[in-house]
């Protein structure tokens, strides 16, 4: 049983790492901002979530699991928001460019 659980946790973490590697390759190879954002925000959130689940399976401790859940939530929320803001700025450049021109 424990061996199975450990293997499960390890598999989750490997899958998460794979997601992040794919995201990194995507950011490197994809041609424009929007497609890069697309791969970054999704794969990032999924990768961190999978790694957190894997780690939670490994430690089997309520406090640590709560912290991991918090990390995942923060990464998901901030990743989605910053992705949205960067894309928004691409389409209606407002503040940054006004400041640049000033």
């Amino acid at each position, binding site marked *: 049983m424990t061996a199975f659980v450990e293997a499960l946790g390890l598999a989750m973490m490997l899958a998460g790492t794979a997601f992040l590697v794919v995201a990194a390759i995507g950011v490197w190879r994809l041609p424009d901002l929007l497609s890069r954002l697309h791969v970054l925000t999704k794969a990032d959130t999924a990768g961190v979530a999978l790694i957190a689940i894997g780690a939670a399976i490994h430690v089997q401790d309520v406090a640590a699991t709560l912290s991991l859940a*918090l990390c995942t*939530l*923060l990464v998901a*929320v*901030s990743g*989605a*928001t910053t992705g*949205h*803001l960067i894309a*928004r700025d691409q389409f209606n450049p*407002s*503040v*940054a460019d*006004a*400041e*640049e021109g000033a």
Partner: protein
Amino acid sequence: MLPVFDVVLAAAILVSAALALWVRDRIAAVSGFLVTGLLVSLSWLRLGAPDVALAEAAIGAGLTGALLLRSAHRIPCAPSKALPPSLWCAAGALAIAISGAIVWTVTSFGAAPVYPSLVADNLPESGAQNPVTAVLLNFRAWDTLLEIAVLFVALTVVIMVAPARPRTAPLGPLVQPFARVLLPLTVLIGGHLLWQGGHAPGGAFQAGAVLAGGAIALGLSGVIGSKLTRQNGLALLAIAGLAIFALAALAAEVLTGALLGYPAGEAKTWIIAIESALTLSIAATLFLLFFGPAERH
């Protein structure tokens, strides 16, 4: 396995630092600096210093990165004159010589460390189980008092120089829900780090930095009204930390005859009181360092 990880990490730090320092685009340079800071904080975890790693991630990478990003477009690029190759070679040789001298000094330095046993022996009386907190707020509380004074001086200079405030603009429909998630979590994590500092990695600086980071994000998104950032209350809060710390030092002097020598058995209460005041004050100071004090006349 772990040495391999460490070597890869060390190489990644050097590469990202070199990128941050030499890339032409400024946003890219600041991003490179952020990545370097996060990798460095990871390496400090590996060096057995989680308190410092937390502070580096929150302050060194996060807040410094935000400050640099704020100024990236306001400071014009210097006209890049090509330096003569001889100067380049001289600078390179000097840098390599200094790095080499550092490596040689550290590796040839063989004296036995003095502090660990001193810290370990006196830890039970310090009022904190986390040795770093014990050093910061008990054994060498003087240093920390002066550090807060330095932050206060920095804030004073920034108020006098009065850089232009970052402009905020409406950021669309996602910002409100973001703020609703972020604000309570910032307060929760800040409080957790503050309380945890007594027995585990954490403390006033990390907690203050997290609070300040959350406040800056909300201030930039316009959720915290510009009214709040314009009030003097925030500046008062920033000063309060230094005032309370100095008062505590004087009170301890009266009570025990030693500056910052807490009365025996009550050290924990003193440390928690000082740390709570410091957390709020550090958060207010860092926030004001980013936003500037008030509208310029």
